[in-house]
């Protein structure tokens, strides 16, 4: 497990994680306010680690997304950058994501938050298997 984590091209990513587009931190640790934030962070790093997404491509897109909407919360820009870079690389098109989003929204009660948003907190029942 540790061995795999060490295969992340750390020299590049660690260097950028403290640069001008670095994630929010508290006491040195990266801060995630919601489960989707840690998820989208991990997806990008997983793609980079496997060599499917050059870190620099993502970083440039993140810089562009932050510049385009400086007041947008950091992790939303990060998520937008991921979608943009995947679309540019023709790995995943926006309409595919839209379609899947609608499918997920149509899940029966208990699997989404449409009907129970007042009943449960966030981050439960998304079925990520962790």
């Amino acid at each position: 497990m540790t061995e795999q984590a060490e295969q992340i091209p750390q020299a590049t990513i660690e260097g950028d994680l403290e640069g001008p587009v670095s994630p929010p931190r508290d006491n040195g640790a990266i801060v995630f306010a919601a489960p989707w934030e840690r998820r989208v962070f991990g997806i990008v790093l997983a793609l980079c680690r496997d060599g499917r997404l050059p870190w620099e491509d993502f970083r440039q897109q993140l810089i562009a997304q932050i510049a385009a909407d400086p007041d947008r919360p950091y992790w939303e820009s990060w998520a937008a950058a991921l979608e943009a870079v995947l679309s540019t690389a023709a790995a995943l098109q926006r309409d595919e994501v839209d379609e899947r989003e609608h499918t997920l929204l149509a899940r029966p009660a208990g699997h989404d938050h449409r009907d129970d948003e007042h009943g449960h907190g966030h981050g439960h029942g998304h079925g990520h298997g962790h």
Partner: protein
Amino acid sequence: MTADDVRAIRVEAVESLLVEKGLVDSAVVDRIVEHYENNVGPLNGAKVVARAWTDPAFRERLLANGTKAVAELGFGGPEGSMIVAIENTPEVHNVVVCTLCSCYPWPVLGLPPTWYKSAEYRSRMVAEPRKLLGEMGLDVPATKKVRVWDSSAEARYLVVPERPAGTEALGAEELASLVSRDSMIGVAVAKEPTP
């Protein structure tokens, strides 16, 4: 549906498609996030300090060979090859700076804070440590000596703060929660336990 729910579903849509296309493995995503949350940050150093507070033999090993001792807790790697632990005492307060760049015991403290790399901190911590520490919120009593350590690639210093009074009954985890990143750089002391 809250804005967070909307974002969560959008991200889930992206992830599920990437998984289906064989571009991402969700288990790998889990491991990477856990790695960044648990392995790369000052909590590592806090665990080392808490252990040194409670285990005199470990404390001796830590002060004798920091790199080897932190490896016992599973922390290490290329950036941690030269960790040197220095201990605060009632007589001496230690503080770390890297006057040349930003040498830092990465495996135990994570990435250095921005101010650590600033020209102001690097020069003033050497020229007028007591004054700068005061400005950063730490007044070191006049009776206590301030010792400034210049970190380098050959020696990346980790300060072991003094154990606060009234913590005899606390367990390792509670003790670690008192140890901030700043206290291990030496610009703060360990937190007092909340009664």
